[in-house]
């Protein structure tokens, strides 16, 4: 349970971090953005980078901004800050409720939203929740910034669209309208453990959003962007959405799950939709 040897640098700004990531030659560098997943992986020697680039003290990565249409959270904003309402909530409670159910308080105090998204563990909460919320990942590389929807940012298990010389700078979360409905259901063997299945749903009729996400699969979270019809059109969203409907969606998605797991995911999705139907 001791990590293999690595070097450690704590750059003062984003440019310094990008230089360290881009200029390594043969050195395999990993970004440390809280380390609540990477720490265990290092201790277990599942990850053996030559260099850790600690970005948690970079001021640009802890900024919180309202750009009018969206809340922009620096990648190193912690789960606990979101849980405690130390950043504005533009989602009618969705953000703090997801944050507050991630792992345990001791982990939430150090773990960060950007770290979780960049780590791209399918069983983590933010990849699924932020896909459902229509959030975007702001990625900075040597040649500038680009913005990618979180639902397209993660392409597989622990796999993202980022190059080795890029850093996830911020998460941009669109403001929901006042009557938006949010449903989120996580199946865990024990509170705080990584999820066996996650279902998430956002219905924001004013913005014509009817989005479902099947998360904690053995692949990237599956976003069903146009779920208006399956959620029952213009009536009470989800009123007619039963387990069979959920199972059809799960069966039709690229989840790499076996039969029993697909059943659990269908249950999670159905229970998430029940929350918006109420």
């Amino acid at each position, binding site marked *: 349970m001791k990590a293999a040897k690595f070097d450690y640098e704590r750059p003062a700004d984003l440019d310094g971090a990008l230089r360290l990531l881009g200029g390594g030659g043969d050195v395999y560098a990993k970004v440390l953005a809280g380390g609540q997943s990477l720490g265990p992986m290092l*201790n277990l020697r599942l990850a053996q980078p030559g260099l850790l680039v600690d970005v948690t003290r970079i001021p640009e990565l802890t900024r919180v901004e309202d750009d009018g249409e969206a809340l922009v959270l620096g990648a190193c904003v912690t789960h606990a800050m979101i849980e405690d309402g130390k950043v504005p909530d533009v989602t009618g409670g969705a953000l703090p409720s997801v944050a507050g159910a991630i792992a345990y308080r001791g982990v939430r105090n150090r773990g960060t939203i950007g770290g979780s998204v960049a780590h791209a563990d399918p069983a983590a909460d933010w990849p699924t929740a932020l896909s459902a919320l229509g959030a975007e990942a702001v990625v900075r590389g040597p040649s500038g910034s680009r913005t990618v929807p979180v639902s397209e940012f993660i392409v597989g298990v622990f796999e993202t669209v980022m190059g080795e010389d890029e850093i996830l700078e911020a998460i941009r979360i669109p403001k929901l309208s006042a009557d938006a409905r949010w449903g989120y259901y996580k199946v865990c063997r024990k509170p705080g453990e990584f999820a066996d299945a996650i279902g998430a749903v956002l219905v924001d009729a004013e913005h014509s959003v009817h989005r479902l996400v099947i998360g904690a699969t053995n692949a990237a979270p599956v976003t069903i962007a146009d779920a208006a019809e399956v959620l029952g059109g213009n009536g009470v969203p989800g009123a007619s959405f039963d387990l069979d409907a959920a199972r059809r969606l799960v069966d039709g998605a690229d989840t790499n799950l076996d039969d029993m797991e697909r059943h659990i995911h269908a249950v999670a999705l159905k229970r998430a939709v029940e929350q918006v139907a109420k």
Partner: protein
Amino acid sequence: MKKTVNLTINGRSVTAEVEPRTHLADFLRDDQRLTGTHLGCEHGVCGACTVIMDGEPVRSCINFAVACDGTDVRTIEDFDDDELMAHLRQAFTEEHGLQCGYCTPGMLIMARDIIARLPDADESRIRLELSGNLCRCTGYVGIVRAIRRVLAERKEVASV
């Protein structure tokens, strides 16, 4: 290559050379001889190694000492004269909140945080908040009872 860290541990200013791969718990125990912090799983699951960093509970086994430069760390040894911790120690003793004692430093650190942060916590909230701290002796009943008792007694005092 070793790195220099400056941090505060239990009110003391500490400067040390550490290997980047040394986690905070090993640094506290082996380098600082503060063996009150216990190591169970060493991958962030059991909570035995929980310490206070900058006022908040964190897991010292998955935070590397080198990354704790400039922080203020408090281990269980620093709470001898802490009034709330004394109250908790008494309640843990009387309610059978411990048997072998391995999880106890982490349990006490977490229990203190729960009481300070959530003065209105009921039993189910206490159990939820404690879900990241494993105990293999007590079945948690005594621990939860001890925390409830301290919460109730502090409320009584506050309302007088």
